Each structure stands twice: as structure tokens, then as C-alpha cells.
């Protein structure tokens, strides 16, 4: 069944409500029918009863009028008009009674046709028949009354008296008829009461039956709801009990789309989540166990470390003691260094003066070298002049050479007579060649001199440069020595600060000694704490194993 439980319950309630509503409507309808029946009966009976009363009254009136007319006729003193008026009244009333009879008969016929029950119809038919009989008698009464009135008009007392017995008899018959009609009406009323009682009884039984059907339907609906809701819920409860007992392996069969199925799916999801949780829990517990073991090992290591720390603190204390001794020595040595540095500063001032002298000497050397360079340059100009002279001499010797050659040629052309001249020419040429050779040697020597001068110039320039460099270096040295002196002074101050710092250091080391004492106490406290941590980690391990046991309870 795929209808949800809410809808099922709603459906049952709707069915019951519909049945009850139908019952109520039916009951209301029956009550309405009874009331209508009663109304009809009462209205009809009352109408007919009133008509019958009118008829009775009119009949009696007719009797009274007739008697009055008779009495008026008999009493001779009465005027005739009065008698005729009474007769007219009588006729008028008789006319009305006649109409009333017709109306009663017609009404009875109509009611018989539309009667709610056959008994009532029979009663109305009987009443109609009786009324019809009464009307017949009434017409006879009128017929017999007319001669009397004629006698009245004629004031014939005997005729009047003669008619009196017959008319009275007819009058009695008519009254008896009317009484019978009344009885018939009473029967009709009884029949109407009977009819109402019948309707009431039928309604009572119908309502009782419908109530019984409603109860039965309610029982059926309750049974259906129980079967569709409570049984699946019991299965779910059993499953929940299994889960509560730690069995996470099962699943609930969840078919359909109703609330139970959704509850089953939700429970399945919850159980799978619980299984995951239990698995995770178990893994976490195992991790916790391992971690507790590690913590224990760490605590043991820490205990060992604390002992080492304790030993190290002892060593540190010894070392600090040595540092104190060496600090004192540092102070002493720094004092010695200060004295040495002060003597160094004095020495460097002497060196400064010496360097200044050196710089002045270098300057003098440079000036002298520059003078030498000037002289050498002048010498070089002189050698240049010598070179010009040599060129001139060379030119002369060349010309002489050519002259001697031409002379030799001329001598040869002169033949025998020029022979001696040829010798002279030869001599001239020899001289010219020797002069040329000599100028060549002089030129060579002059070149060497020139080179020497150039070298000297370069050397002198080098000397000037070196003297300048020496001056620069002397200046640098001077500055350096000044810096050295300044730095030595700074060093003196620094060492004085060092001595002061060393004294402060000694104070600081004493504080360090105190701090080391504190550290030693702290180490002992740490060792105690470590032992406590070890015990706590052992407890933690036991707890973790207990947790493991608990986690094992869940099957999945």
C-alpha cells in the first residue's frame, strides 16, 4: 500500500464523518417528514373540524330562525316584513350551509387523493361519504321547510304546525349526520396519529441501523490503521532494539513511499552512519592507544633529558665559574693593553713627524728632478742644432764627391795630360768620402746621444712621477698614521669600556649563577612533573584499551 499513513487515517476519519453526517442528515430529514406530516394532518383536520363547526352552527341557526319565523307568524302582532326578513335570513344561511356541505365534500375528496397513508385516505373517503349523506338530508330539510315558510307567509298556523314534526325530525337526522361526520373526522385524526407514530418508528429504526453501521465502519477503519501503522512500527522498534543492543550489521526493508518506509530509510542511513562512526571510533581509539604509548615513551625520554639537563646545568655552573676567572684576567689584560696602546699612540705621533719630514724631502727631490729635466731638454735642443750642422756637412761632402767624379771624367777626357789631375780628383773624392763617413759616424753618435737624452728625459720624468708618488704615499702614510693614532685612542677608550663591560659582565655572571640555581630547581620540578606525566600516560593507555574494548562491542 503506497498511501501514506496520514492519508490512511484521514481517509478513515473522512469515511466515519461522512457516515455520521449522512446519519444526521437522514435524521433531520425524518424529523422534517414527521413535522410536515403533523402539520398536514393538523391543518387538514382543523380545517375540516372548523367547517364542521360552522356547519353545525349554521344548522342550529337555521333551526332558531325557523322557530323565530314560526313564532313571529303565530304572534299576529308582528309585521309581515319582519317574518319575511327572518325567512330571507334562513334562506341565506341555508344557502351558505349548502355551499359549506359542497366544500366539505370537495375538500374530503381532495384530501383523500393526497392522503399520506391509505388509512387516512379511507378516513377521508368515509368522511366525504358521510358529508354527502348529510348534504342529502339537508336538501330534504330545505325541501320540507319551504312549505312551512309559505305557510308562515300566509300565516296559516295549522299548516305551520302540520309541518313542524316533519321538519324537526329532519332536523334531528341532519344533526345526527353531522355528528357522524364528526366521528369520521375523529377517526381520520386517529389515523393521522397512527401515521405519525409509524413514521417515528421507521425513523428510529433507520437511525439505529445507521449508528450500528457507523460503529462497524469505525471498528474496520481502526483495524486497518492498526494493520497499516502499528505493525510496521513494531518492526522498526524491533530493529531499533537490535541497534540499541549493538548490532549495526542489519538493515531495515523499506519498500514503498510512506512514512514507515521513509523512517526505515532514515534508520538505515543512521545505522550506516553509526557503523562508520563506530569504525572511526575504533580507529581513533587505536590511534589514541598508540599515541598514549608514544606519550609514555616521550615522557620517559623527557625524564632522561631532564637528567641530562641537570648534569648540563652542573657543567654550565662550572663553566660560568671559569668564565668569572677569565673575566678577571680579561680586565687585567685590558689594563695592560691600554698602557701599550697609549705608548703606541705616542710612537705614532713621532712617526707622523718623521713622515712629514719625508714628504718635504720628496718634494725637494721632485723639484730637483724637474730642474734636471729642463737642463736635459736644453741639451736636446743643442744636439738638434748639431744635427743641422751635420746635415750641412754631409751635403757639402756629397757635392764634393760629385765634383771629384766630374773632375776625374774631365781628366780622363784630357787624356795623357790629365793624368795627374785625375790623381788629384781621386784624392778629392777620397776626402769627400772620408768626410761623409765621418759625418755618418757623428750622426750615429748623435743619434745615440739623442736616445740617451730621451731616456734621461723619460727617467727624469719617471723620477718626478716617483717623487710625486712618494709624496702622495707619504701623505697617505701621514693620514694613515693619523688614523692609526685616532684608532689607538679609540682602542684605549674601547678597552676602557671593555674593562667596564667586564666588570658588568662579572655582575651578570653572578646573576647567571643565581639563574642556574633556579634552573636546577626547575629541572628537579620538571623531573617530578615528568614522572607524573609518565603515570598519567600509563593511565591514558589503560583508558585507551578500555575504549578499544567498548568499541569492539559494536558489530558492523
Amino acid at each position: 500500500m503506497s498511501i501514506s499513513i496520514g492519508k490512511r487515517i484521514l481517509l478513515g476519519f473522512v469515511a466515519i464523518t461522512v457516515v455520521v453526517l449522512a446519519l444526521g442528515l437522514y435524521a433531520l430529514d425524518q424529523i422534517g417528514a414527521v413535522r410536515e406530516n403533523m402539520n398536514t394532518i393538523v391543518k387538514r383536520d382543523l380545517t375540516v373540524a372548523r367547517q364542521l363547526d360552522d356547519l353545525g352552527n349554521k344548522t342550529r341557526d337555521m333551526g332558531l330562525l325557523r322557530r323565530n319565523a314560526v313564532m313571529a307568524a303565530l304572534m299576529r302582532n308582528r309585521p309581515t316584513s319582519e317574518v319575511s326578513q327572518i325567512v330571507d335570513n334562513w334562506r341565506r344561511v341555508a344557502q351558505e350551509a349548502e355551499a359549506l356541505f359542497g366544500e366539505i365534500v370537495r375538500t374530503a375528496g381532495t384530501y383523500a387523493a393526497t392522503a399520506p397513508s391509505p388509512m387516512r385516505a379511507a378516513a377521508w373517503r368515509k368522511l366525504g361519504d358521510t358529508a354527502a349523506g348529510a348534504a342529502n338530508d339537508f336538501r330534504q330539510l330545505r325541501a320540507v321547510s319551504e312549505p312551512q315558510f309559505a305557510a308562515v307567509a300566509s300565516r296559516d298556523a295549522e299548516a305551520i304546525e302540520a309541518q313542524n314534526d316533519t321538519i324537526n325530525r329532519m332536523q334531528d337526522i341532519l344533526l345526527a349526520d353531522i355528528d357522524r361526520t364528526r366521528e369520521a373526522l375523529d377517526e381520520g385524526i386517529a389515523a393521522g396519529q397512527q401515521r405519525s407514530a409509524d413514521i417515528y418508528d421507521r425513523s428510529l429504526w433507520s437511525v439505529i441501523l445507521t449508528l450500528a453501521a457507523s460503529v462497524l465502519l469505525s471498528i474496520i477503519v481502526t483495524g486497518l490503521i492498526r494493520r497499516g501503522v502499528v505493525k510496521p512500527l513494531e518492526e522498526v522498534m524491533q530493529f531499533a532494539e537490535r541497534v540499541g543492543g549493538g548490532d549495526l550489521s542489519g538493515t531495515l526493508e523499506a519498500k514503498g513511499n510512506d512514512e514507515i518506509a521513509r523512517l526505515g530509510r532514515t534508520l538505515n542511513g543512521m545505522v550506516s552512519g553509526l557503523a562508520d562512526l563506530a569504525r572511526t571510533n575504533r580507529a581513533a581509539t587505536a590511534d589514541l592507544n598508540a599515541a598514549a604509548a608514544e606519550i609514555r615513551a616521550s615522557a620517559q625520554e623527557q625524564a632522561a633529558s631532564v637528567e641530562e639537563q641537570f648534569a648540563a646545568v652542573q657543567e654550565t655552573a662550572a663553566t660560568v665559574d671559569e668564565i668569572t676567572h677569565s673575566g678577571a684576567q680579561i680586565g687585567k689584560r685590558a689594563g695592560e693593553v691600554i698602557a701599550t696602546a697609549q705608548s703606541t699612540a705616542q710612537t705614532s705621533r713621532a712617526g707622523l713627524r718623521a713622515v712629514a719630514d719625508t714628504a718635504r724631502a720628496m718634494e725637494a727631490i721632485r723639484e730637483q728632478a724637474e730642474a734636471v729635466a729642463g737642463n736635459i731638454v736644453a741639451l736636446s735642443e743643442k744636439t738638434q742644432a748639431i744635427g743641422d750642422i751635420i746635415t750641412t756637412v754631409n751635403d757639402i761632402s756629397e757635392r764634393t764627391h760629385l765634383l771629384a767624379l766630374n773632375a776625374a771624367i774631365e781628366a780622363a777626357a784630357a787624356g795623357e795630360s790629365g793624368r795627374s789631375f785625375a790623381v788629384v780628383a781621386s784624392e778629392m773624392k777620397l776626402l769627400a768620402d772620408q768626410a761623409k763617413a765621418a759625418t755618418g759616424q757623428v750622426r750615429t753618435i748623435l743619434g745615440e746621444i739623442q736616445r740617451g737624452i730621451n731616456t734621461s728625459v723619460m727617467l727624469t720624468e719617471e723620477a718626478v712621477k716617483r717623487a710625486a708618488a712618494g709624496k702622495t704615499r707619504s701623505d697617505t702614510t701621514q693620514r694613515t698614521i693619523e688614523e692609526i693614532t685616532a684608532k689607538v685612542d679609540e682602542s684605549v677608550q674601547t678597552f676602557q669600556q671593555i674593562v667596564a663591560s667586564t666588570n658588568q659582565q662579572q655582575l651578570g655572571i653572578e646573576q647567571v649563577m643565581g639563574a642556574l640555581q633556579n634552573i636546577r630547581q626547575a629541572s628537579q620540578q620538571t623531573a617530578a612533573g615528568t614522572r607524573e606525566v609518565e603515570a598519567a600516560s600509563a593511565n591514558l593507555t589503560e583508558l585507551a584499551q578500555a575504549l578499544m574494548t567498548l568499541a569492539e562491542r559494536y558489530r558492523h
Partner: protein
Amino acid sequence: MNPAAETLRRQALRRARTRALAERVRTVERETPSSSFLICTCGGDRYGLPLSQVAQVISARPITSVPGAPAAILGAIALSGRVLSVLALARALGRGGAVIPEGGHLVILRAAALALAVDRVEGVLAVADADPADRASPEGLVDPATAGLSNETVSGYAPAGAVASRESKREPSQQSGFVVVDLPRLLRRYLS
């Protein structure tokens, strides 16, 4: 240079001058038949020009180039109202195209209006005439064919020992032979 060395040097110079002056007389006395040559150098080679065919020696001067001339003709110069062609001796002898240096000399010839451009004129040397009967004599000119030379413009070769000049004997380091140029045969090519 100290004064003593100076004195010694001057004395040596004077002795040499004295010897040279005395030699002049002996040279004239020791007259042997010989030919004189003007010795010229061109690019390291020494050439001898017969002195009788040389008119003058002058120093080099600017040469006016002549268009369309043979390669050996450097150009022309004007000298004492004459126009002379300048012939490069080394080129004319087929010894390469060495350019005449700046301090060169020009040798003016008697036979033709021609000047020979040489590197330098060294001097005059006398060589003893060759004895036709004694060809193997080391003195005098040697026939070119005998000396292994076949240039047609060369008329002979004077070995180093054939020079009879005094200075060559006095300065043995400068002794070297020279080629005697046959000027008429050389110039025929350019004057025809």
C-alpha cells in the same frame, strides 16, 4: 774620450795623409795600360761604365715623365739648354723595376742625349787591359762567356782582383767585382 787618445788619433791621421800624398807620385810612375770605368750601383749590383763615354755626373732632380715611352725610360730632364731622356739602368739591363731612390745620381753620356739613372755613382776604377794571350790571367777583364755570363749588353766582367785602383787595395773590405756595360749595344735598343 781622453786627451791622450785624441793625440794618438790625430797622429795616426797625419801619418795616413802623408802616406797617401806619397802614393800619388808612385801611382803615376807605375803606369800600366789600363781602362778606367765609372762604377755605379743599382739595387745592390755594381756596374762599370767606360769613363770615356761619360760626360758628367749630376745629382738627381725632378724628372718630367713622357707618355707612351718604354718602361725603362723614366722621362726627360732639361740640362744646360738640352733635353735629355732619362733611362733607368737597372730596368734597361732587365734587373727589375727598382725605383731610383731620392739621393740618386744621373750619368750624362757623351754619345747621345741620354742620362742614365743610377742609385749612386761610387767612383772611378782603372782595370788593366786584358792580355789576349793569357786568358787565364786573374788580372784584367774576363770574357763574359768565360765568366758564365751571356747577357749581350755586357762586354766583360771585372773580378775583384782585377781592380788596379789604389783605394781598392787599401780597403779590401769594399773589394767586389763589377759588370762592364756595353753602352752602344745597350743604347741601340732605345736610340734606333
